[in-house]
């Protein structure tokens, strides 16, 4: 009896977790600039180091640039990485982590790079 109850409880919890899990589309490209696990874990580190290299030293490589992130991952419908199902905002809302980048940076894909 307890086993069945535990099984039902686990199923309900799994369903609830699935319902709440962030929904987003990758939008573009076969592969990201690093393996998915690494990107999930370390994207903030990549962006932090790239930002200092770009702004302070003038190194403008595109691999970890925020502009490149937005160009691939912005939604086809809204053109943005923010919004309810936006690539950045959906996960950040789920994880309750404040997203500061777009206070200053534009969340919109550059107009010319649509395909």
């Amino acid at each position, binding site marked *: 009896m307890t086993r069945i109850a535990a099984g039902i409880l686990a199923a309900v919890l799994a369903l609830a977790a699935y319902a709440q899990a962030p929904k987003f589309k990758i939008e573009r490209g076969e592969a990201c600039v690093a393996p998915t696990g690494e990107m999930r874990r370390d994207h903030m580190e990549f962006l932090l180091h790239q*930002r200092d*290299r770009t*702004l*302070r*030293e*003038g*190194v*403008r*490589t*595109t691999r970890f640039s925020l*502009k490149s992130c*937005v160009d691939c991952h912005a939604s086809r419908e809204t053109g943005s990485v923010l919004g309810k199902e936006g690539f950045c905002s959906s996960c950040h809302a789920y994880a309750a982590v404040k997203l500061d980048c777009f*206070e*200053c*940076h*534009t969340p*919109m894909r*550059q107009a010319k790079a649509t395909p």
Partner: protein
Amino acid sequence: MNPERRQLLGWGAAAAAGVALAPGLRLVELALARSPEEAASALKRWGLLIDIAKCADCDACVTACHDENGVTAHGRPATDPQWIRKVSLRDRHTGFAQTLPLMCQHCEHPPCVDVCPTGASFKRADGIVLVDKHTCIGCRYCVMACPFGARSFVHEPVSGQKPDVPRGKGTVESCTLCVHRVDRGETPACVEACNRDGGKAMSFGDLNDAASEIHRRLKHEASREIRADLALNTGVRYQGL
């Protein structure tokens, strides 16, 4: 150094320059082109030379700058950000009137960098003075320290920023010498607009590069720094002032 030795060095330099240059390739292009992986070099010093005699009574530079950098006004001149402005001068006795564009002078010894408590205000290796808005706390010491009034505080929320020019409320900003364009090998938007629509008064280049137009003109023609008394060695020089 004796004259013979100097002569010999001169010939050596001339020979080196001749070897380095292929036909049809000028040092200007070599100086402007930099690969994205390469950091800004301290061998360069970017600067502007503005000939006020040619400065027409227009604001092509101001419009181009604010378009390029997405600087929008709210119709409130007291608090609207301003990266470049036209200043009118008038001799009180003779009535002689002049107009000139004024922006960040990209000093070699910038007072804004001296006073910044967080290190957000900094000078890049190639002489461009910038604000790192990631570390700017909006204290506005730099705004007070700048003798040219070149810096603005962003008082109101910003939207619709340009991808190359992030801007946000609560930080200080000023002319970046269009650093994103310079890194691509282009000239600043104001210079491009002045040479297209204005009086062709502005030129841009590497002050350290002996082969550049701006270096040659600064060497052979009279020019002035604004507030030269402060000995800041500005990167923006004026003629006809």
